[in-house]
């Protein structure tokens, strides 16, 4: 009887595997069929060329995977099960994503936002439930009271949550979804998803696994992929693919309306097109020596008694690059050195240190947009506080030394000499607190014994700072400098909010990212903008690399 049952279940398993094998062959053939449609017919109508290639590659890979698992399943191999599960899982995910996209589930967030405001109050009921639940923990010595509290808490939370869902429009949503299901495409996709689901079940069930000699390592690997999959799929779609895609875009003249031609490295050539010419005298106009319709004057300089002029096809790019680098070079020390200084003071165990630390950290949690708006008013030349403070300071000095400095009327944001500095100050102000906390964390890792030993040796405050603190803090310093630099090179929001038009006066606050934004989203040269992004990346990368190497040289990184 037992044996018969076993026999029966083995037969059943064999049957299931057989069906799954057919399914895989069917899958790979239909995959190849679709692939041909896409490649030769540019099927599915309106999809862009690049997308059809990506779809083709994906389909090809899936078909091959499916074919491979089919073959392996015929041979009753373990690998067949792994491959089959992977293929079916991907198929299921893709078809479910398609279904969601088709049903408009992702866009439903917009609609949810509509009702969310009025229903969010009900969520506080869940909080009450939680409080009741935790209140029960006080009675842990009387188990039934504790359990009663837990139960009541749970129900309260659930009931309020249900009310929240209904208020947020769950029922009409379900009705809407049900209606959508009647549409043939959706129906077909659901059907396909169910097929994929069945195939997964067929391979996952214990009997099949045993029949195909599963091992613990295989199970663990499958589980590993399963756990990683949501992350990995999202990561591939929204990070890795765009990264590669970005490079492709930079080789085209893509605009925002979907027109694109492959133009090779033209964008990069235009960015880097420079022209150096000697001038007859230092005041000669640049268009006398080079074609004024292509080049613009970037800078002129004197070398060995001769004047030269450097022209660039895209002078604004070079100006933006220069501004960005200046911004980085000034902002980084301006936010790191005071931070190091403050961290050292905070590290001495005086009372109230936590309050100061908390205050210093405040600016780094506020939105850059908000911060920029505040500072814009502080910087106002006529009624702003900054000029007022400077005036008070000058008056004070004037009174004491009877000097005659005039009233401060610094036009922080509208004078091309101070505008970039103004932005730098805001950025440094905002990152300083964050850096202080980082340094503080680094300092707390420095062993106290070293200082004690140094004190015994009679080292002074400064000597201790230079000989102990700084070297041991090197990893933190490296981290602070690197992250601040990377951030500084991407400066955008401050400039965008504080200067009007952004980048003004003239081009004095035009930064690379702002220039990228202008090209990509105001002039719709997205190919060109993508090329700028890659140049920025290379700049950032090489600066980081440089810092990393100098760090290695001092040899302090291996703490």
């Amino acid at each position: 009887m037992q044996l018969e049952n076993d026999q029966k279940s083995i037969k059943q398993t064999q049957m299931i595997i057989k069906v799954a094998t057919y399914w895989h062959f069917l899958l790979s053939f239909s995959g190849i069929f679709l692939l041909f449609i896409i490649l030769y017919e540019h099927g599915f109508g309106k999809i862009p060329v690049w997308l059809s290639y990506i779809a083709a590659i994906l389909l090809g890979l899936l078909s091959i995977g499916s074919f491979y698992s089919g073959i392996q399943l015929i041979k009753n191999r373990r690998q067949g099960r792994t491959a089959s599960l992977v293929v079916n899982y991907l198929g299921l995910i893709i078809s479910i994503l398609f279904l969601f996209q088709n049903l408009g589930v992702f866009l439903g967030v917009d609609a949810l936002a509509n009702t969310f405001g009025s229903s969010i109050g009900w969520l506080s009921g869940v909080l009450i439930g939680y409080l009741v639940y935790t209140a029960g923990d006080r009675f842990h010595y009387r188990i039934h009271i504790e359990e009663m509290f837990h139960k009541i808490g749970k129900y309260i939370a659930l009931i309020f949550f249900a009310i929240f869902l209904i208020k947020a429009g769950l029922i009409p949503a379900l009705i809407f979804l049900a209606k959508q299901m009647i549409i043939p495409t959706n129906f077909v996709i659901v059907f396909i998803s169910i097929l994929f689901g069945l195939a997964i079940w067929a391979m996952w069930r214990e009997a099949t696994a045993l029949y195909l000699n599963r091992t613990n390592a295989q199970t663990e690997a499958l589980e590993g992929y399963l756990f990683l999959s949501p992350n990995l799929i999202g990561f591939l779609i929204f990070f890795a693919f765009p990264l590669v895609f970005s490079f492709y875009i930079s080789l085209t003249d893509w605009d925002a309306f979907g027109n694109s031609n492959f133009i090779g490295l033209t964008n990069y050539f235009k960015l880097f097109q420079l022209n150096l010419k000697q001038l007859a005298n230092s005041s000669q106009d640049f268009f006398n020596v080079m074609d004024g319709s292509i080049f613009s004057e970037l800078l002129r300089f004197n070398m060995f008694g001769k004047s030269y002029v450097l022209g660039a096809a895209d002078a604004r790019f070079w100006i933006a690059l220069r501004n960005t680098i200046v911004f980085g070079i000034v902002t980084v020390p301006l936010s790191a050195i005071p931070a190091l200084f403050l961290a050292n003071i905070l590290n001495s165990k005086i009372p109230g240190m936590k309050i100061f630390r908390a205050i210093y950290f405040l600016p780094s949690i506020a939105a850059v947009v908000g911060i920029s708006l505040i500072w814009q008013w502080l910087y106002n030349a006529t009624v702003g506080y900054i000029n007022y403070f400077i005036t008070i300071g000058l008056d004070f000095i004037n009174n004491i030394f009877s000097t005659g400095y005039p009233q401060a009327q610094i036009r922080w944001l509208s004078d091309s000499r101070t505008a970039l500095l103004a932005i730098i100050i805001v950025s440094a102000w905002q990152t300083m607190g964050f850096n202080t906390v980082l340094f503080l964390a680094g300092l707390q890792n420095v062993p106290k014994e070293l200082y004690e030993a140094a004190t015994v040796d009679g080292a002074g405050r400064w000597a201790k700072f230079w000989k102990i603190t700084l070297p041991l803090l090197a990893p933190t310093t490296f981290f602070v400098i690197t992250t601040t630099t990377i951030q500084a090179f991407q400066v955008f929001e401050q400039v965008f909010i504080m200067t009007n038009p952004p980048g003004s006066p003239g081009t004095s606050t035009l930064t690379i990212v702002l220039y990228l934004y202008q090209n990509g989203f105001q002039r719709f040269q997205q190919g060109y903008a993508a090329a700028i992004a890659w140049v920025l990346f290379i700049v950032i990368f090489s600066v980081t690399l440089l810092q990393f190497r100098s760090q290695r040289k001092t040899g302090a990184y291996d703490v």
Partner: protein
Amino acid sequence: MKSFKLSRFLTNLGAYLILTFFALIMLFPFIFMVTTSLKTPDDTFNYPPRLLPREGVEISLEGFEKPVPLYLIEKDGVQSEFALVESGIPAGIYAETDNQSITYSVPLDQAKPSESGEQFVMPDGTVQPIMDVLINGNIVQLVQVGKTALGRFIDPEDFSREVFQVVRTSQPVTKVTAHPENYTRVMTMENMGRSLTNTILVTLFVVIGQLVTSVMGGYAFARLRFPGKDKLFVFYLGTIMIPFVMLIIPLYQLMVLFGWTDKLAALIFPWIFSAYGTFLMRQFFITVPKEIEEAALIDGASRFKILYSIFLPAAAPALATMATFTFLYAWNSFFWPLVIINTGNYENHVLTLTLNMLRGRASDSANLILAGAAISILPPFLLYILGQRFFIESAMSSGVKG
């Protein structure tokens, strides 16, 4: 011994002074934001600037229809409150004939051509009549050198005591007030209420989504063996350094393809997968002792059960740290919403976008703009006060080991 104490006291005092100085620099802009957001519009344009919201004091006087503003005026060497009852009175600037740098501003009707009919030749050659001008009750003979306009100020107690002087340079009497209605006003402008809801919703989704994917991915990287794991992990690590601007153009095109431009979905779904978060969680899970897990596995617990009954409770501080990190990122992000959400679609704005709009639409009202800024800045501050530890730790966790 005494000198040691003293020097220590001085060091500490110096330390506190420096710390307080920097603390003021850090706090001042926020204080300025809050106080300005409570001001009236014309108060924001006052110079010298005043920190606290102030308003001019007005007084109802008999015989005047509207309340009149009060000013601090010096008369007969005493400073007291006067009411401005009339302004823009045409006046002349009169100078002494022998010393033209001494001038008096007096209403035109208080000066008459001198009965003597004398003339005076100005330094530039023009000829002016000598005038009889009433100054402090005396008639003085002066010559007119210019025109101006004055205000008439009277003593509210005694209407006959009056002073003529330039209104612009007079000092008004003010009192401290507050206009919290700026906040309710700004909430109705630019659909800010809705954008607050949107911001909360988006932040909630992003934080929860990122926690879920990072915990699962981190667990897989920390505890499960599968082919290609190390290579994948290195790949993840390598991408942490890649700046966001690299992605903005391709991601935009991707959103166009998905039909997500202008939709909240574009603010949520691309951001719930984080290489950095995965890395953080992996680093944490690696420190959890293996023995408990193995015991549970032998008991036949599934991986999911192990994850949420063993790893998650242990990871609560790490989760909170990561949540604050993500929260700040989602709440404060501006560049991506700016690119992807259209200005016209008021339904889908987030706070930062609304602030950007407000900047244009209320450019002459600092009080409203800063009230808007406060609405976006204060919620994170509130959370910060509640869970300071996690904020600081999220900063430290990013730094200590590099």
